[in-house]
């Protein structure tokens, strides 16, 4: 049985082809998905999506959204997604540092929450690069 993965963002299709296995970051922890998985609809957290093609693992930074698994079709709808190999390490590291300083500067509940989210997004991007290397 083949497993098809489709990762969509509002702006473009990031991934649309066959995979062997994926590990999906959900709000309640990571789930591994192999062929013939039970139908499932799940919220996707900000985190790293791991994709296995034969023996090679790829990573993708996901920025929150939804996933639907049915009939060996995985559809992941996210606000934004980037392949680990497409992220510029320097730029990601810089963004992470900016996010950290912003969090320290943040005042009030709303700002803190937003800064926290930004930090998580930045951290995910950095992690997505580092997994490969």
């Amino acid at each position: 049985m083949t497993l098809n993965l489709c990762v969509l963002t509002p702006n473009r299709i990031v991934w649309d082809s066959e995979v062997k296995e994926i590990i999906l970051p959900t709000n309640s922890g990571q789930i591994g998905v192999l062929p013939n998985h039970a139908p499932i609809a799940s919220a996707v957290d900000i985190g790293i999506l791991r994709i296995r093609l034969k023996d090679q693992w790829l990573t993708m930074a996901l920025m929150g959204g939804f996933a639907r698994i049915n009939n060996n079709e995985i559809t992941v709808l996210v606000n934004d997604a980037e392949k680990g190999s497409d992220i510029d390490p320097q730029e990601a590291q810089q963004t992470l540092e900016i996010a950290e300083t912003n969090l320290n500067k943040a005042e009030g509940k709303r700002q803190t929450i937003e800064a926290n989210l930004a930090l998580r997004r930045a951290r995910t991007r950095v992690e997505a690069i580092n997994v490969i290397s």
Partner: protein
Amino acid sequence: MAMAAVLRREGRRLTQPINALHSSLISQDQAPHGSRSISTQVVRNRMKSVKNIQKITKAMKMVAASKLRAVQTRAENSRGLWQPFTALLGDNPSTDVKKNVVVTVSSDKGLCGGINSTSVKISRVLHKLNSGPDKETKYVILGEKAKAQLVRDSKKDIELSLTELQKNPLNYTQVSVLADDILKNVEYDALRIVFNKFHSVVQFLPTVSTVLSPEVIEREAESGGKLGELDSYEIEGGETKSEILQNLAEFQFSCVMYNAVLENACSEQGARMSAMDSSSRNAGDMLDRLTLTYNRTRQASITTELIEIISGASALEGFPG
């Protein structure tokens, strides 16, 4: 198309004096004695203004064409995200609920054919269909043009209106903030988004997408109606199922909105392009007519003068010496 109408109106107003001029030329012998030539100044002025209008419409067509190209690819890309939602949650325009919200997407600028009036018309129909003794329907309006039309007769039903959407290039972040705004300010059981789906440069399909509230989704799924399929999915990743459904509905709404706004922007540019094309053509036709009249008048006055000179000369010839 609006421009075309203007031109046509202008044309009608114009043709009369010209025809009057013309007929006075034809019946030259009945003209008051001594009026040999008629001033062509009026016709020349008209020709100049028509030429200027044609230049403007041509330029607007070019601008619309280049904007269309930019927005079209993005509209096509945004279709991908909207389809999985329809596959999961379905699109159920017939769902009968109490609180309906009609989201009318229109443009801020005019001169783009009938796309705005089409969405307004469809919105009115939806409003009428979903009104009843214990039901209520509200409008949420995006864009200046639909606002102007709906304010006239259903001001009390307008819950929220947002304009100047396209000041910056449309992006998903902006639209999702906007969608959040709408969800925060409006109570709904079903959102019906009315927009013009871009089919080709000359074809736009007025479309309604329905987004149901999480409660309605849950109810429909449990009763095993059209959404019964949703129950076969295990819902993962949150504290409760309703929390997930809430997030899902919000995400769906922002994605559908994003798609709707892009499709509508695309249709707007397409419609403007064809409207401006036809008004340039109309201006050309009018210019041809005016040129013809102008040349005829000129020729007629030349002929008259020649006749006068020749007959004067031949009259003199009759007297010898």
